[in-house]
């Protein structure tokens, strides 16, 4: 801290003092320091001026007590053992001392903590101060920089001002110079003109003088005059001659213009030819591209179609008008050319883009199929295709042959027809099903007949029983009661078979086969009716009707019909409800007949078409 003060005192005296004051200011610390350190210091100062002497023990005690009370240790009250105060009541004193020691220790620890804190704080303060100074330095630096910049700006401003003034003066100078130049130029031209005039005057004068002097020397001395180069004689200068000169001039001019016009015409014609050819080629190029482009989108193709139509029309018209006067055709021509050119350009651009795409693809693939392998592959595939074709052809021939040998042409054609084949397949399936059902029915019929035979037999037995019973009854009514009783016991025994079958079985083993069936269906209705049971009842009881019959009813109309017929009371044999196989075959055949007329027609149509096709080109 002292170092700080010495180094920084000059600069920030007041600030640091204030800070130190702030750090030192807490009153608690001050209190502790004052209240704790003073006695120690005092005790160490001098033994003579000690606090307690033998004389003032009591006062001391009272004082200490007071002090203790002020410290909040009221519980321990030090007392003197004797009024003189020589002795001290040990327990409270010790307690007080202990308490004091405790307090002392506590305070010491707090002091330590506080000191640590103080240290920390001081270090942070130091840090802050260093950062503060650094920031101050920076601030100063930036201030200096700013001032420097300000200065520079000022200088630049000054420079600008001077430059502006310079510019102004220069401009002025330029203007001045320009005016000087202009004046000089005018002066020069004026002088030149003057001089020229003078020279002209002098020349005039000179020539005048020369003429006046009648210069003898000025002469031509020719041995003899020459003829004109063209052999003609000289002409007099007359108006006619002048006119003829004019005429000559205009003639030459005219001939020149004519020549130039002719050359231009020739050039024009050639250009026209080229143009026409170009146009033709353009149309030629553009028309297939437009047709190929039709595939892209409907609207587009339509548009294109329209365009190409218009174009062709335009081309035609322009071609027509080309031979006419150029004036009228020019606009049309240029328009059409422009249109076509645009189209061509678009086409070329498209091609370009395609090419670039393809190139990109090729570049990305980096796999170029060599031409040879490609061609080899092509060749191979072609061979394959050829082979396949041959194979197909051979097959067709074979088929044809087979059909020709087995059937007539119509059936052969029918066999070729896929639809009838399918039909046949289906019919075959049905036939199979039908066979199965037929077998089922056969079995059922057998069962039924067996059951009927059994029933007949049982009925016969029953009849016999009844006859015997009636005979017995009759006999009972007669005086031959013993016999009747005997017979009734028989009947009873016969009727009670149901309740005691085991006895019945054990007793009457011989009748076993018959009685089991007999009991099952005769007993419930024996009381109701003695009539013959209906067929469905019979079926039901015999469980001869298959459970899936209901589903079959829905599937097959034919079968349903049969079943409905069956459901009826009249018992028809199952054969009647199905068409006999021979009939079925006939119908099939008929169907076939119906079917193969069509292919024949078709074939005829095909040949006709081909015939027509042959004729079409001619």
């Amino acid at each position, binding site marked *: 801290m002292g170092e700080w003060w010495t180094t920084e005192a000059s600069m920030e005296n007041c600030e640091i003092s204030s800070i130190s004051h702030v750090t030192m200011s807490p009153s608690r610390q001050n209190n502790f320091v004052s209240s704790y350190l003073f006695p120690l210091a005092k005790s160490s100062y001098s033994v003579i001026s000690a606090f307690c002497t033998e004389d003032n023990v009591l006062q001391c005690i009272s004082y200490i007590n007071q002090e203790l009370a002020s410290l909040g240790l009221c519980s321990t009250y030090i007392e003197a053992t004797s009024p003189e105060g020589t002795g001290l009541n040990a327990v409270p004193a010790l307690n007080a001392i202990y308490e004091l020691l405790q307090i002392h220790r506590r305070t010491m620890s707090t002091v330590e903590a506080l000191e640590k804190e103080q240290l920390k704080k001081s270090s942070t303060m130091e840090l802050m101060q260093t950062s503060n100074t650094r920031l101050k330095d920076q601030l100063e630096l930036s201030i200096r920089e700013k001032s420097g910049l300000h200065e520079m700006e000022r200088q630049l401003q000054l420079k600008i001002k001077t430059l502006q003034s310079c510019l102004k003066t220069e401009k002025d100078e330029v203007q001045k110079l320009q005016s000087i130049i202009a004046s000089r130029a005018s002066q020069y031209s004026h002088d030149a003109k003057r001089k020229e005039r003078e020279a002209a005057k002098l020349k005039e004068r000179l020539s005048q003088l020369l003429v006046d002097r009648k210069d003898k020397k000025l002469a031509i001395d020719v041995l003899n005059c020459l003829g004109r180069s063209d052999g003609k004689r000289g002409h007099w200068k007359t108006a006619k001659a*002048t006119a003829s000169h004019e005429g000559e001039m205009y003639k030459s001019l005219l001939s020149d213009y004519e020549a130039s016009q002719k050359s231009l015409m020739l050039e024009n014609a050639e250009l026209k030819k080229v143009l026409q050819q170009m146009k033709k080629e353009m149309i030629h190029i553009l028309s297939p591209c437009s047709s190929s482009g039709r595939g892209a989108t409907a609207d587009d193709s339509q548009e294109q179609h329209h365009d190409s139509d218009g174009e062709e029309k335009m081309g035609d018209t322009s071609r027509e008008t080309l031979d006419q006067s150029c004036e009228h055709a020019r606009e049309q021509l240029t328009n059409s050319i422009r249109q076509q050119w645009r189209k061509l350009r678009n086409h070329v651009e498209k091609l370009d883009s395609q090419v670039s795409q393809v190139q990109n693809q090729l570049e990305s693939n980096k796999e170029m199929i060599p031409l040879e392998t490609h061609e080899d592959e092509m060749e191979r595939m072609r061979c394959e295709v050829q082979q396949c074709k041959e194979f197909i052809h051979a097959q067709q021939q074979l088929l044809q042959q087979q059909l020709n040998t087995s059937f007539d042409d119509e059936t052969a054609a029918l066999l070729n027809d896929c639809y009838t084949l399918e039909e046949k397949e289906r019919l075959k399936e049905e036939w199979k099903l039908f066979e199965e059902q037929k077998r089922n029915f056969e079995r059922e019929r057998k069962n039924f007949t067996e059951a009927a035979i059994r029933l007949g037999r049982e009925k016969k037995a029953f009849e016999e029983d009844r006859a015997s019973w009636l005979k017995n009854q009759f006999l009972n009514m007669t005086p031959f009661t013993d016999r009747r009783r005997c017979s009734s016991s028989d009947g009873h025994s016969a009727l009670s078979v149901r309740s005691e079958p085991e006895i019945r079985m054990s007793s009457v083993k011989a009748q076993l086969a018959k009685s089991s069936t007999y009991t099952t269906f005769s007993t419930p209705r024996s009381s109701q009716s003695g009539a013959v049971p209906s067929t469905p009842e019979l079926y039901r009881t015999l469980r001869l009707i298959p459970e899936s019959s209901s589903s079959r009813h829905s599937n097959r109309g034919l079968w349903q019909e049969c079943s409905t017929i069956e459901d009826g009371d009249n018992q028809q044999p199952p054969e009647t409800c199905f068409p006999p196989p021979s009939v079925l075959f006939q119908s099939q055949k008929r169907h076939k007949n119906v079917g193969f007329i069509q292919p024949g027609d078709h074939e005829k149509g095909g040949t006709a078409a081909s015939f027509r096709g042959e004729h079409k080109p001619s």
Partner: protein
Amino acid sequence: MNFSEVFKQSNQLCKVSPDGKYLATCVQYRLVVRDVSTLQIMHLYTCLDQISHMEWSSDSLFILCAMYKRGLVQVWSLEQPDWHCKIDEGSIGLVSSRWSPDGRHILNTTEFHLRITVWSLCTKAVSYIKYPKACQKGIDFSRDGSYMALAERRDCKDFVSIFVCDDWHLLRHFETETQDLAGLEWSPNGCVLAVWDSCLEYKVLLYSLDGRLLSTYSAYEWSLGVKSVSWSPSSQFLAIGSYDEKVRIINHITWKKIAQFEHPATVESTKTVYKEVERRPAVGTDEMSLHNITTGSTLFNTQSKYEICSLPVQIPVVKPDPDRANPKIGVSVLAFSSDNHYLATKNDNMASAVWVWNMQKMSLEAVLEQTSAVRCFQWDPRHPRLALCTGNTKLYLWSPGGCVAVQVPTEGNFLGPKLNYIVLRYRKGAELQ
């Protein structure tokens, strides 16, 4: 290629007759006419003074010899060697003398361009044309020789007069929209007259034969403008070379620019660049004879050959002095080949290069890079073949097939180093003097 012996000449006056049969050379005050096929002297004429200008008449029958210092013109006839004609311009002086296209009139321009005197050899008649303008090309005859266009200056304004050469009748006289007319040139078909302004302003005007203004062309403003103008033989194109080192080609229908040929320092796109490479012949010890040293033929003469350079090629550029008048920059020479297929140009700040342009593809066909500055070049009148010279003893030929350098044999150092200028004249594309 065959070479004759060296003929003496003075003032570089050496001309082949228009029909290609004769060769006229001037030596001091003598005029020597030779038969081209035999090279035998046919006629020898003696003039009154040293000849400063010599010209064949269009029918190859007469030769005009002008002695500007004395203001005299003498005419000689090939058919009649004793026929003579002398024209004295007197004290007024003479600066230029030329034949009219019909070969029967002589046009003399007096000093200070006071007037043009037209002398008729048929009638001895004399007529004056006043106010001719002293400029780059102030007078031009149409190709068929029927019209003459003359630039005039009156009242500080430019005028063009068109005369009928037949009888010197003034056909048209009109003022041109120029500040300071610099030149005029007929189109080869004789129907359009191109007129261009002085280099201070880029302006080319095209007039019809009857004086109507057909079109005006100006490529840019505020800079030095037209430097050279040339019609293509078919009259289809007008090539304009300008100070911005470009050649602009104008078409004859719309009179608009259809192509622009630039002359970049780095040639990047052309078919071939021929570079001349000089090589001193290896002198063997046995050849180091006294004779060789004295004649100096092998020492002074180096052999040249062309090498084809790979593109791009850097062409040497000389920066012109901006403070001097008529800066050496821009396209100064333009020449179309006779078949219209090629155009040869020369850019003044790349004096060692000749550029040949293909007019069908409108592209640069070839560049010929010489070791020294190109003095002049000329097309073969029959074939697409270009001959050029650079002021040494070699002649260079370019054709679409290739390029060749030919050493002109000279006798010792009599002419070799001094031969700065070879007058290029083809005799029907076969021989060359």
